[in-house]
């Protein structure tokens, strides 16, 4: 499908085609300036999206917030797949104005890719910190690719901080701290979604995101061993 680029938005169109002929389509539009999800007003908010329903540990939102913003963003897709099995095979096509991606995969893998977008574009104070990554969203990314995107996005942010005369975090210490809180949100969200689903596709999609988030501090503390060798050309020159 041809999507016309609109400079005011960032668009993704996810199409899940199943072996039984079922097709489910999700069109995501983000505000290009803020990278927030552009939602229709008055979207239905099921009970499980209330902040009090299995809240995340150390949730920074106060009692004035009735709904969890991440859960509200996820409500449509979670409802759509609440009785789906994680390992069901599907062909996922992701269309953007620039290019199209396609993968024959499991539903949990396809869902984890789209859920990642919804989670960081919701105005959750924790997940917001990952929002710049969504502009460079890579569907079906491997842990290694996500690690590279995570670190490079963060370091770009630190460079911009430095240019503004502020103190950058080149050691990635704050990124480690950030991912510890992201893990808490992923964990809380998996409990919430598990209680809103009949089968395991939705929850396993969040678990995939959690497994990566939980490993980020480890990757960093181990000197990014998994991707270090790709940068030999730089490190060898220096030494």
């Amino acid at each position, binding site marked *: 499908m041809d999507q016309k680029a609109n400079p005011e938005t960032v668009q993704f169109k996810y199409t899940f085609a199943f072996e039984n002929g079922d097709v489910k389509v999700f069109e995501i539009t983000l505000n290009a300036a803020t990278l927030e999800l552009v939602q229709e007003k008055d979207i239905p908010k099921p009970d499980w999206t209330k902040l009090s329903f299995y809240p995340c540990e150390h949730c920074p939102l106060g009692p004035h917030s009735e709904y969890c913003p991440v859960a509200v963003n996820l409500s449509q897709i979670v409802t759509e797949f609440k009785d789906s*099995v*994680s*390992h069901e095979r599907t062909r996922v096509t992701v269309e953007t104005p620039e290019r199209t991606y396609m993968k024959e995969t*499991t539903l*949990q*893998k396809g869902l984890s890719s789209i859920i990642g977008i919804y989670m960081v574009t919701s105005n959750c104070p924790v997940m917001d910190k990952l929002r710049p990554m969504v502009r460079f969203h890579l569907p079906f990314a*491997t*842990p290694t690719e996500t690690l590279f995107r995570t670190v490079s996005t963060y370091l770009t942010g630190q460079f911009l901080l430095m240019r503004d005369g502020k103190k950058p975090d080149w050691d990635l210490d704050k990124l480690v701290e950030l991912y510890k809180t992201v*893990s808490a949100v*992923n*964990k809380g969200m*998996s409990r919430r979604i*598990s209680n809103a*689903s009949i*089968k*395991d596709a939705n*929850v*396993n999609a*969040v*678990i*995939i995101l*959690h*497994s*990566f988030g*939980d*490993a980020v501090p*480890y990757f960093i503390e*181990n000197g990014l061993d*998994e991707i270090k060798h790709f940068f030999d050309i730089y490190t060898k020159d220096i030494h």
Partner: protein
Amino acid sequence: MKDKILVVDDEDSLRMTLKLRLQAADFDVQVAQDGEEALEVLKKGSIDLVLLDINMPKMDGIETLGNVARDYPWTEIIMLTGFADFSTAIECLKKGAKDYLVKPIEMTELITRVRATLRAKTSERAFKELQQRYMSTFFHDLLGPLTTVDSTVEHLIEGKSGMVSKEQALLLRYAGELTDKMIQRVKEMIDLSQFEAGLVVIERKPLDIPIFAEMMCARYEILAKAKDIQLVKKIDKDLPAVNFDFDKIAQVFNNIFDNAIKYSLRGGIISITVSKKLEEELGQKKESIVFSIKDNGIGIRPDELPLVFNKYKEQLTSKPADLKTTVLGLAISRHIVEAHGGKIWVDSEVGKGSTFNFSLPVKS
């Protein structure tokens, strides 16, 4: 030596992150993407603990758990699931899992649970090994006196200590037959305990398969004739030589053939097929020699098929009472075939008969 852990999950990114984190915690880690692949990995070497996802394609976690608990009693299992369900947790623990954890789980907690399970396993294993050594000695001690009783009875029947009446000879023969059965059973117990304690040495030599198969069949031709059973042989002639332990594989052949004769009705047919086949293992094809012994006896009920090679099972209910004597022989056969890197299995239909098959890899 590092503890060996097998991570079984259908999601590659979960397998990868779990592998990396467990390796960092000083474990030797292997991975499998479903139950079938997990069983192939287990067959190739000892695994101390399996981290087993529940919801997977092909063979799911619950079925895999049953197979691992039955075939690898020294391997501990921790179930991992994204979808907590109390009844599934109970089912897993009943089937032999040591723990049931709900994902997402923090690595520090997972590693703590893994270490605790392995510590408990080490103590339990030491106790069981002691128990097995004791049992092995006990059965050896039993075998000596039983053999003496058997030879004494033989001595008396032959009249070497004076004439015996016809009635006395009949009673002595009955006593001799019972003693022979006890000796056979005690020898099986010794074999089984030695396999379980890892004390059996397989002495492989390159042997000619067609000659071996003909020799085995010749032993049973007379027995079959006595029961008016027709023996049909189909032994391929151009089979490659295979390295195997003659006595041990002969034991497997005898165990299966004894059953076939025992369960075949008078006038029945037993077919023996020996051929070369390509078997698929972990996506790779390998050549094997497959022995199939088919009878048209009473057959085995479908729910009892998975239990046939299990020493702990109840006696099979589909067998007549006087035929319930071969359980250990098949359990030992499984140990022998697997020690050669092969497989043993049975296909059966009640009322139509059973086909027992075992394979030996051409390159072992």
